[in-house]
């Protein structure tokens, strides 16, 4: 195989010596360096046929990064999309741009790729200037052909200048970047490049990868995890229980049990058949005691933001609203269970998996295998859309541990119950909000208290195999009360946000799930704002307009209201005695950047408690929308997933273990339940691109809750809005 490393040895075309600060390309914490980020060759190779390969460190997760990022490179290099290729992520080949999470591909990766492409173009123009004996200022480029302005016959192609040789040029830091007015590709809906292969069966998902000599593997675990702190202890393994499956054998490391077999079916059925007695402790709160236990926990408290005098202002205000919101654990529910292939030798390891962060996974695998990180190579293959930290690291570790144990390549795939039952769930949350407005409808005070635990550090495989002590991640903006998403979009003089960190070891294993905590935040917060509007006697959209000063928040709010043809009236002013009633609601919110707003139109059957979302509208302002068509697709997915999460999704568990282990026990939204969708991209060509993969979900969650109030006059305090919960809420009010 012609590796990037080999390519890099083949000699350079030109040498210019400069250096660039580390700032833009800060290395990931704790990971060893990959390819040098300040060398053009790390990012871009120009080929003799006048095409380019761009080396990108962000994964295609279904979000469109494999189109949007080459789009940025093509724009800055003055190439057509058809002239730009990419390669798969590989710690030996592609640069370390950090993990593909927090909707960062375009937001964080875009500027890096734009800079690299601009540096490459600058270097190419310098070469062309010499070759054509013409000053830089008189050169123009189109489709990789550099020509002299006014003399199109005097030209040279990129391929002729450096074709298949190295640049050997560090970044200058002075390469000019195109202004928005000159964009040809950016801001246009270039068709997704991965779709033709995905619809025809040519796309290689991780689940399709096979290597010679490999064994098929499955893990054997209790059905459903217990408390994160407890893990699971093996009391006994009865290997005679799989005696009838000659091709299968048990491989055990600590409490990690694997089944290995030549054929996949033997591994699958042996894993189901093997009799293992587990010691599982009844230390979980169970769904019924979850929120009370969190609320009563001894927490680590921190004031995240405070200004003015909330209590004083609320005491004097005409209207005060207090509201509690409770959001459940929710699962990534990865559609294709995690899969990995590991080939661990005595002195090196190659692991293919669907991690969102090849370098981060390399570091964790190096620890598990007790091998230096530079001996471990991780390659990325796309799996099903992960929507956060699902079980990809866990599966990669299990494959690596088993391969190390047997000295052969191992292909391991989780079963549905492994994925649903041993996920890093998006943590449950309790929010208590108090908001006050004066009689003119101005918000004068806002206070939010949030309770939740942090994300897990230790993967289940390591915990089981080596007894690694479970621990939780510290800090991190996305796992605590968010100043961006709570109150701050409003012009509120008195504001206080407090985070109550619950110790997480007695709970389920937590991790980041698309728009972490934001749905729960907005569910409580935006219902309180809505309730204030109601008490003041104002239309909820008009009330928000009155209280938002920021032009970009107003921009998305207005855009979504316009699309939904919002007409002015107070919420719950059309209450009907009919069995099936309708309502509409509005909400705003975001994740860590960008601006989101949504409108929901729903139908509530007061007899059955069933809710149908009829139409969802969502608007995002993510600065420069590199590929607005793809962002519309993202908004659409966010709205559908939010309806699913607010109406249906909840991880269930008793005192001992998780009990939602498949699509029947963890239902998600189906075709017949899917609302009509209207996505709106607010384009801001001159603003920095920020994330667009999760920022409309918070507002959409709140819009559904507010629509429920509009339809019924009742505030829901807990989601998902299952029929039982809806009927109970209607009965109590």
């Amino acid at each position, binding site marked *: 195989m012609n590796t990037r490393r080999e390519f890099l040895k083949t000699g350079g075309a030109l040498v210019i010596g400069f250096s660039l600060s580390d700032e833009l390309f800060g290395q990931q914490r704790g990971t060893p360096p990959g390819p040098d980020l300040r060398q053009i060759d790390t990012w871009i190779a120009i080929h003799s046929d006048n095409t380019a390969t761009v080396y990108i460190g962000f994964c295609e997760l279904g979000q469109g990064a494999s189109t949007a990022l080459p789009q940025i490179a093509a724009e800055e290099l003055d190439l057509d999309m058809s002239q730009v290729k990419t390669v798969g992520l590989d710690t030996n080949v592609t640069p370390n741009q950090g993990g593909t999470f927090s909707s960062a591909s375009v937001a964080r990766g875009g500027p890096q790729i734009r800079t690299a492409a601009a540096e490459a173009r600058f270097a190419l123009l310098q070469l062309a200037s010499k070759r054509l004996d013409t000053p830089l200022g008189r050169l123009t480029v189109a489709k990789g052909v550099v020509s002299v302005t006014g003399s199109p016959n005097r030209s040279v192609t990129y391929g002729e200048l450096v074709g298949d040789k190295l640049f050997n040029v560090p970044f200058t830091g002075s390469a000019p970047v195109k202004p928005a007015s000159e964009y040809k590709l950016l801001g246009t809906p270039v068709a997704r490049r991965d779709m033709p292969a995905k619809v025809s069966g040519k796309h290689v998902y991780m689940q399709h990868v096979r290597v010679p000599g490999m064994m098929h593997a499955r893990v054997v675990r209790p059905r459903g995890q217990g408390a994160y702190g407890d893990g699971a202890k093996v009391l006994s393994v009865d290997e005679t229980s799989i005696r009838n499956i000659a091709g299968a054998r048990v491989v055990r490391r600590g409490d990690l049990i694997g089944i290995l077999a030549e054929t996949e079916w033997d591994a699958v059925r042996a894993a189901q058949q093997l009799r293992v007695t587990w010691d599982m402790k009844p230390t979980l709160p169970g769904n019924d005691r979850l929120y009370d236990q969190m609320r009563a926990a001894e927490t680590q408290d921190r004031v995240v933001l405070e200004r003015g005098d909330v209590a004083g202002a609320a005491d004097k205000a005409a209207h005060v609203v207090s509201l509690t919101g409770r959001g459940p654990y929710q699962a990534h529910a990865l559609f294709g269970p995690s899969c990995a292939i590991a080939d661990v030798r005595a002195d090196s390891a190659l692991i293919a998996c669907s991690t969102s962060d090849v370098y981060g996974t390399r570091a964790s695998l190096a620890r598990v295998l007790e091998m230096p990180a530079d001996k471990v190579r991780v390659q990325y293959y796309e799996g099903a859309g992960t929507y956060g930290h699902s079980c990809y690291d866990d599966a990669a570790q299990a494959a690596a541990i088993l391969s190390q144990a047997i000295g052969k390549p191992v292909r391991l795939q989780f079963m*549905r119950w492994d994925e649903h039952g041993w996920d890093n769930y998006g943590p449950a949350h309790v929010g208590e909000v108090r908001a006050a407005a004066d009689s003119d409808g101005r918000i004068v005070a806002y206070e939010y208290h949030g309770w939740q635990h942090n994300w897990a550090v230790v993967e289940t495989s390591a915990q089981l195999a080596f007894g690694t002590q479970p621990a939780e991640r510290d800090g991190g903006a996305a796992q605590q009360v968010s100043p961006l998403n709570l109150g701050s979009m409003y012009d509120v003089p008195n504001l206080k946000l407090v985070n109550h960190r619950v110790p997480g070891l007695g709970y389920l294993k937590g991790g980041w799930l698309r728009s972490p905590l934001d749905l729960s935040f907005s569910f409580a917060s935006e219902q309180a704002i809505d309730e204030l509007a109601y008490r003041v006697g104002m239309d909820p959209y008009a009330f928000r307009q009155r209280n938002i000063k920021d032009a970009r928040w107003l921009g998305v709010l207005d855009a979504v209201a316009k699309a939904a043809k919002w007409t002015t009236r107070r919420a719950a002013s059309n209450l009907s005695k009919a069995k099936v009633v309708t309502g509409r609601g509005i909400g705003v919110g975001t994740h860590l950047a960008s601006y989101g707003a949504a409108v929901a139109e729903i139908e509530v059957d007061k007899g059955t408690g069933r809710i149908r979302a009829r139409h969802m509208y969502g608007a995002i302002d993510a600065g420069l929308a590199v590929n607005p068509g793809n962002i519309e697709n993202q908004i659409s997915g966010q709205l559908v997933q939010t309806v699913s999460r607010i109406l249906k999704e909840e991880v269930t568990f008793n005192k001992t273990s998780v009990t939602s282990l498949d699509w029947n026990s963890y239902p998600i939204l189906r075709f017949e339940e899917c609302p009509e969708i209207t996505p709106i991209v607010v384009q801001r060509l001159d603003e920095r691109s920020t994330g667009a993969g999760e920022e409309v979900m918070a507002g959409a969650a709140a819009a559904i809750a507010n629509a429920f109030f509009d339809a019924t006059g009742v505030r829901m305090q807990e989601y998902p809005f299952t029929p039982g919960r809806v009927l109970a809420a209607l009965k109590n009010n």
Partner: protein
Amino acid sequence: MANEIKIRVNEQVRTVTAAPDTPLLYVLSSELNLQGPRFGCGLGQCGSCSVLVNGVEMRSCQTRVSAVEGKSVTTLEGLPAWYAAQNKLAKVPALHPVQQAMIDEQAVQCGYCFNGMIVKASELLSKTPQLTEAQIRSAMNGHLCRCGTYPRILKAVQRASQTMKGVTK
């Protein structure tokens, strides 16, 4: 015990060695290296492993390989040829109209569920070329999508239905 079993997949007769109770899915993906049908739940709940057996959509994770002996299995890869044969087209198109419509509507996100979505929609349109929105939703209801691409899939199926007008016999 493993037996030699002959199965017809995408109009080719293939001999595989497998225990008769092996789910068809594992034979298609692990023995024949087909990339259309894929493991999603192993429980017949999600639809990612769907194939056509004699033109009828079936969950290959719930179908024993021995049950398709003597029958014709069509996977995502074989849909264009299946469509051409059904409609006696002179030439096999590069893509089935449903596959093409998914691209035209830019419907895909991660795409993992699209095997089942496309197989199901192809079966549906082969039986009933003109469908109401409610009929499409109802027929597709057993196929789940985690990315939430249903709205665009719906449009794509409607588009394919238009394309197939006049072609389908």
